[in-house]
Each structure stands twice: as structure tokens, then as C-alpha cells.
């Protein structure tokens, strides 16, 4: 049922049949052309030459390596940002201290930074021209144009996702459950595992889904710091661009189809969570 349907008593503005049909029709046509067509075109183009050719283009060593690197990045980035999100949300919603609002702004800051700028700031920190570049070189450490740089920049880009979901939820919870657990003699960690974590589990899952989707799909920031070495530092989105620039359309669409399916699964999980988990509503980046 529509969220507004319960309140719909009698006639409301826009309920006239032809207005309603016109607006719904226009909305559906635009959505079909603008949002659905891009997904369809990727899948159609990927399968254009048949399943065998599709698999052949997908299962090349470079593309498989790109898939592996993308998964590796997500496997490292998502848990780290889950821990960060919990710590950040706990600190800013359960305590009041000077600079608390500033801290919330700082937590959300990466959302406002262009992916290209995110890549550039890491280049000027760890690159040869950067702040720590000379020191890293003197110690024979290489971060830029290698996997650590990809992971670091992805941590930056995706750090606010979990934190924002948890802050929004924990601001509404008053902390009474935790107070009760404490007064019954629970230790800090007992309280956390048995009271706090179960209370925030849906928001945590929601944040993790958004965080992994972004970490898998990040393009601009990663393309600045990766160095684009074929079969070494190419993530799947970069592989799509590389194959496209090589005029290997079938390869590019095969790689893109994997990312598209991941995107569709993300949407499905999100919709399921919003439908079945209590207190979940469509909040987006």
C-alpha cells in the first residue's frame, strides 16, 4: 500500500482521472527510457553474440583478475567502515562534547568530495610528489599505483555510508535500553553485544549494502591512484573503461554486465530491507 494511501480520504489534488493517467504515463515513459533502458542495453549488448562468446569475453585472465581485486577491496573496506561507523555513531549520539556537530560534518564530508578530488588528495599524500612520498621512498615502501592505494581511497569514498545510517537511527533511540542493561549489571561489552548491536542490526546491514555497492563501483578516485596496470591494479569498473577504449565492446559489456547484476542485487536487497525491516525508509546518498 502506498505510504500516503491511509490518509487518502475523499478527493485530493491531482485525483482527476485524466491528470492522474497523464502524470503516471509520463513518469513511466521517462523512467523506462532514462532509468531502465541503460540496464537493458548493457545486458542485451553483453549477450549479443551468444552465451558462449559472453563467457569467453568474461573469463579472460585480466577481467577475472579485475573481479578478484574488486572483491578483495570490498572485503577489506566494508568491515573496516562497519567498525568505523559503529564507533562514530556511538560517539556522536551517546555523548555530548564540544565540537560534536563539527565531527558529524567531518564524518559526512567525503560524500561532498568529487571522486577525482578524492584520488588527487591521496596522490599528494602518498605519491612521489606528495607529503609522505620522499619518506616512503627512502624506506622502500610503495603505496601509490598499487593495491594499498586502491583500498585507502575506497575507504575514504565509502566511509560515511554506515556511519550516516547508524547516526540517523541512534539519534532516535534514546539509549534507555543501554541504561537498563547497565543498571542490571552488564559490562560495557556485554551491553554492546546484547543490546546495542541487535537494536541497530538492520541499519548496519543497510549501511553495509550501500557501502559495498559503492566500493565495488568506485571509478574516478580509483582511476587516479591505481596506475591502471592490466591484470594487476585494474578493478572491474576500470576494466570496463580499458576494454571500451580498446574497442573491445563485447569484453567491455561482459565486464559491465557483472557490475550491472551486482547493482540490481543491491537494489533488490535494499527494497527487501525497506519492506521487511522495521524503521527502514528510502534514504539515499
Amino acid at each position, binding site marked *: 500500500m*502506498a*505510504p*500516503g*494511501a491511509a490518509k487518502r480520504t475523499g*478527493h*485530493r*489534488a*491531482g*485525483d482527476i482521472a485524466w*491528470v492522474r493517467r497523464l*502524470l*503516471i504515463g509520463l*513518469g*513511466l515513459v*521517462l*523512467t523506462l527510457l532514462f532509468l*531502465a*533502458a*541503460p*540496464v537493458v*542495453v*548493457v545486458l542485451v*549488448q553483453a549477450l549479443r553474440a551468444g552465451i558462449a562468446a559472453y563467457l569467453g569475453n568474461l573469463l579472460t585472465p585480466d577481467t577475472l583478475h579485475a573481479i578478484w581485486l574488486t572483491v578483495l577491496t570490498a572485503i577489506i573496506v566494508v568491515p573496516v567502515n562497519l*567498525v568505523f561507523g559503529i564507533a*562514530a555513531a556511538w560517539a*556522536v549520539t*551517546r555523548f555530548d562534547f564540544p565540537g560534536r556537530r563539527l*565531527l558529524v560534518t567531518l564524518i559526512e*564530508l*567525503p560524500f*561532498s568530495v568529487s*571522486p*577525482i*578530488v578524492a584520488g*588527487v588528495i591521496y*596522490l*599528494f*599524500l602518498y605519491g612521489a610528489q606528495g*607529503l609522505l612520498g620522499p619518506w616512503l621512498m627512502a624506506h622502500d615502501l610503495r603505496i601509490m599505483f598499487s593495491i594499498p592505494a586502491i583500498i585507502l581511497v575506497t575507504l575514504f569514498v565509502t*566511509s560515511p555510508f554506515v556511519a550516516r545510517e547508524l547516526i540517523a537511527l541512534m539519534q532516535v533511540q534514546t539509549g534507555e535500553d543501554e541504561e537498563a542493561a*547497565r543498571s542490571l549489571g552488564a559490562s*560495557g561489552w556485554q551491553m554492546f553485544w546484547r543490546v546495542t548491536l541487535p537494536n541497530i542490526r538492520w541499519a548496519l546491514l543497510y549501511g553495509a549494502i550501500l557501502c559495498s*555497492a559503492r566500493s565495488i*563501483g*568506485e*571509478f*574516478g578516485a580509483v*582511476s587516479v591512484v591505481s596506475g591502471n596496470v592490466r591484470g594487476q591494479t585494474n578493478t*572491474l*569498473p576500470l576494466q*570496463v573503461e580499458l576494454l*571500451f577504449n580498446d574497442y573491445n565492446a563485447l569484453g567491455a*559489456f561482459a565486464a559491465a554486465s557483472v*557490475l550491472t547484476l551486482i*547493482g*540490481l542485487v543491491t537494489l533488490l536487497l535494499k*527494497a527487501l530491507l525497506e519492506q521487511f525491516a522495521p524503521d527502514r525508509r*528510502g*534514504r*539515499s546518498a
Partner: protein
Amino acid sequence: MPGLGLSLGFTLTYLAVIVVLPLAALVLKALQLGPAELWTLVTGERALASYRVTLTMAAAATLFCGLYGLLLAWILVRYEFPGRRLVDALVDLPFALPTAVAGLALTTLFAKNGWFGSVLEPLGLKVAYAPAGIAVAMAFTSVPFVVRTVQPVLEELDAEAEEAARMLGAGDLAIFGRVILPMVLPAWIAGCALAFARSLGEFGAIVFIAGNLPFETEVTSLLTFIRLEEFDYAGAASLACVMLLAAFVMLTATSWLQSRWLRFTGNP
């Protein structure tokens, strides 16, 4: 409540390493250039052209997102129709689909022999490898912002105000223009501001479709990337600072708008 030291300590350390230190490295790099050189770099001819392309196309994209986003939010909240849930889920697609895939898909659709391009180009409307392509890519990646900021406000809208207006003799159009629109407007503007801010920084979707010709279809994020590939680090740093500054201005504007909107509707 326990855990202040641990949670705040971890949060501050993490933010210092992941967010503050890299940002400081960029600012430091820019300061090393000195004000005169910085000014020369950010006001170079090609840089100015890139700002113009970025700002005009972002404005065009925001206009489209504003209208299409409002329409989508309206039909999703006000009407029941087959496929409503699917459309509601699809709204988030631009956030779930990697920008590189969006760029590849839009380029394919609007290319000369593509599904849309084969219809539009004979009419003289060139989208792929033209400025319009930039606007299309920007609009795709930022349309959810408008829908998702307007939608909750439309849902919370009080039917009583509408009924009162109707009893005073107002027609549908007057109710929409005089009662509904004023209440939705702050959220709509906030959503448009978010969409505009996102458009200014977009890169992934644009590089595929834009054609990337200097002075014509080169956005600032792409010029920054090109400067890096040319090993022109001073140029890249100065452009990145301009983009960062623009992001701060937009962030301040949107948070101000949102605080106004929250006061307006009384939502937490």
C-alpha cells in the same frame, strides 16, 4: 554510558588518517605554489572553459532532475499503479549502478547507431560526444537526490490543508500551486542543490559520453585528470582546490537549506 574514550578515540584517529591528512596534503601542495601562480593556474583559458562547460551542463542536468524528480516523487506518493514498487526501487539505480557502467550504457544508447541516437541524430540532436551528453550523464547520476528529498515531505503532507483550500473554493491547480508547492519547495530546492553539487564533481559517467574535447566538452574533473596524466601536478592541485572549494560552498548551502526545511516541516 561507557565507551566514550574508545569510540571517540578510534573515530578521530580514523578520520585523521583517512580524511584530514590527505585533504591537508592537497592544501599544502596548493599553498606551496604561492597565490600568484595558483591564480594563474585556476584562471587559465582551458580551466575557465572547463568551469563554463561544467556549470552550464550541471544547471541543465539539475533542471531536468528537478522536473522529472518532482514528477516521480508525486506519482510514487499520490497514485497507486501497477509497477509502482518497481519504479520506486529503480529510482535508486543511479546510486547502485557504477558510474562507469552508466557512462558505457548511456554512450551506447545515444551513439549514432544506438537505440536513442538513431532517432535523435537525424533530427539534428547530437547527444553522445557532444555537450548534451555531459548533461545526460550528470542527470542520470543525480536524479535520486531530488526524488528522495521530496518524497518524504509529500508523504507527510497534511490532507486537511488541502481540504480547507477546497472548501474555500480552490481548484486542483490552485491547491497545487498555493498549498502543496510552497510546502514542498524547500525540500525540492535542497534536492536540486544536492543534484547540482553531485553533477559538478561527476567524472565516471561523463568520460565515456562526452567526447572530451578541450574547450568544448571537457569538464573540470576531467581536466584535473588530464593534468595528472601530463604530470602537471601544480595544475592538477589547483583545479582540485577549485573543485573542493565549490563542494564546500554547495555543502554549506545545502545544509543551510536543509536546516530551514526541517524547521519548516517540523520533522526530526
